[in-house]
């Protein structure tokens, strides 16, 4: 990986942004077991199709192979991972430790999240951690990278005479343009930017009007120039999936027109892909949107088709 040239981490994702390209990332959900093949298969679908791949961290509080481990497996398959860290399961000691380890193993992108509460998952009686929140987590990673210090203030070196060896990470955060209270959404984004976020990925978008309004407020504050904003998308496989997401995923809104369109279609899956491609095309027109983040949950094999139909292949070599 190349560093320097004004780059903070030198990751592929960072260089794609720096070169001015519209970036594309996707998501890979690790298996609920130690099965390595699952990661290899999913990585295979995404190779050459995206600039980096998010590896989720015990998403919805269901135990899966760790983001770091699955990310390394993905790296061996030639993909660049975006490791995800939530605040739900790890305290500041564990997180800083994991970040040192991740960097040592070649990871260069980390996405900071608060994390879904454990009540959603398969171990609802576990102890709550949430030692930090996502804003503080972003700040902590920035301090490690730029000030070369741990949260406690100590320098990141192995001894008085050892060299400084800080983790140089490209730092990401999440944003939800659709959650409540709406006026706070942009304030929260501004805080994450000030805390040190380099890139932001949003919750998946179906309500384009609301997203455009959010982007207008973002641009008003000049935030789009301080951070790279990637619009999140999830292609809908079926009407059932759309209804489930609308009713069960915290902070998600799906307008009725989308559901109607899907139910009227002959081939729902194909229509879902079509809607997704159209969304990408519309998003590319919005000022301040620097890329798209495709979260094809358990549908990773259709990502290539979406990226191609949206005219975003081949991915740039930077």
């Amino acid at each position, binding site marked *: 990986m190349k560093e320097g040239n004004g780059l903070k981490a030198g990751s592929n994702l960072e260089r794609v942004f720096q070169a001015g390209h519209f970036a594309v990332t996707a998501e890979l959900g690790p298996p609920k077991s130690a099965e390595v093949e699952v990661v290899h298969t999913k990585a295979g679908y995404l190779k050459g199709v995206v600039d980096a791949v998010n590896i989720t961290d015990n998403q919805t509080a269901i135990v899966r192979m760790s983001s770091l481990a699955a990310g390394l497996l993905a790296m061996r398959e030639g993909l660049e991972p975006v490791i995800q860290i939530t*605040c*739900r399961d790890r305290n*500041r000691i564990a997180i800083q430790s994991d970040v040192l380890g991740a960097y040592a193993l070649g990871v260069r992108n980390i996405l900071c999240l*608060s*994390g*879904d*509460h454990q*009540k*959603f998952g398969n171990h609802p009686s576990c102890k*709550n951690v*949430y*030692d*930090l*929140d*996502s*804003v*503080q987590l972003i*700040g*902590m990673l920035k301090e490690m990278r730029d000030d070369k210090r741990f*949260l406690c203030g100590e320098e990141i070196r192995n001894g008085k005479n050892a060299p400084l060896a800080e983790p140089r990470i490209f730092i990401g955060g*999440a*944003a*939800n343009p659709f*959650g*409540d*209270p709406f*006026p*706070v959404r942009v*304030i*929260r984004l*501004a*805080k994450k930017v*000030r*805390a040190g976020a380099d890139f932001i990925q949003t*919750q998946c978008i179906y309500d384009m009007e609301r997203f455009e309004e959010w982007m207008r407020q973002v641009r008003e504050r000049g935030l789009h120039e301080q951070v790279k904003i990637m619009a999140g998308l999830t292609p809908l496989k079926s009407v059932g999936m759309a209804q489930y997401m609308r009713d069960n995923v*915290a*902070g998600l809104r799906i307008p009725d027109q989308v559901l109607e369109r899907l139910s009227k279609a002959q081939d729902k899956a194909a229509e879902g892909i079509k809607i997704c491609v159209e969304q990408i095309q519309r998003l590319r027109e919005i000022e301040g949107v620097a890329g798209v983040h495709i979260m094809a949950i358990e549908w990773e094999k259709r990502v290539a088709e979406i990226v191609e139909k949206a005219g975003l292949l081949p991915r740039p070599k930077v």
Partner: protein
Amino acid sequence: MITAVQKPFEEIYRMVEASGKLLILGCGTCVTVCMAGGEKEVGILASTLRLACRERGSSLEIEEATIERQCDREFFDPVKAQVLGADAVLSMACGVGVQFCSELFEGKRVLPALNTRFYGTTVQQGLWSERCAGCGTCVLDRFGGVCPVARCAKSLLNGPCGGAQDGKCEVDKEIDCGWQLIYDRMSALGLLDSLMEIQPVKDWSTGRDGGPGRIRRQDVEL
């Protein structure tokens, strides 16, 4: 107040059935207010236990008493003899009272009739809600009098998270999103700008995370 709820009957029965003479001891403060362990509740539990014992052929002998509080030494004086005369005490106080009673009467079995829940308030009769987490470093001045540690499920200091909908927490639709409350309150106070400040990482060591708590005030020691 400290709130609590009564344990299920069967659990209580199993705890006490082997005692010969049982004293059910109520507390007149917090658990009276949350209607879990006051004089009235002592009477109800005692009657129910006696009826159950009769039905099941148990010869358990049950006495009842209620004192002002079970977390201060002097309030136990009026019931000292009764406690000493019992084989076991079923305390209807919060966890503090149960333990304190146990400490005062060495060798006496003191059992908990309640599950202690949280520091909270009576929203209306029959509904109690958590307000304080005892973190040891109160920051209520920064959040318009609404505590993000206790009222946000994730204790976010720079909330909200992305999961709230219609002002309710993602974890439970019956619970208000703490950050919605903070936002509304700060808005009403004209203090929204201060929500832009990044709250630094919390020092959790002043609360339970730092170990069992202890306060020493030498200025008032006798």
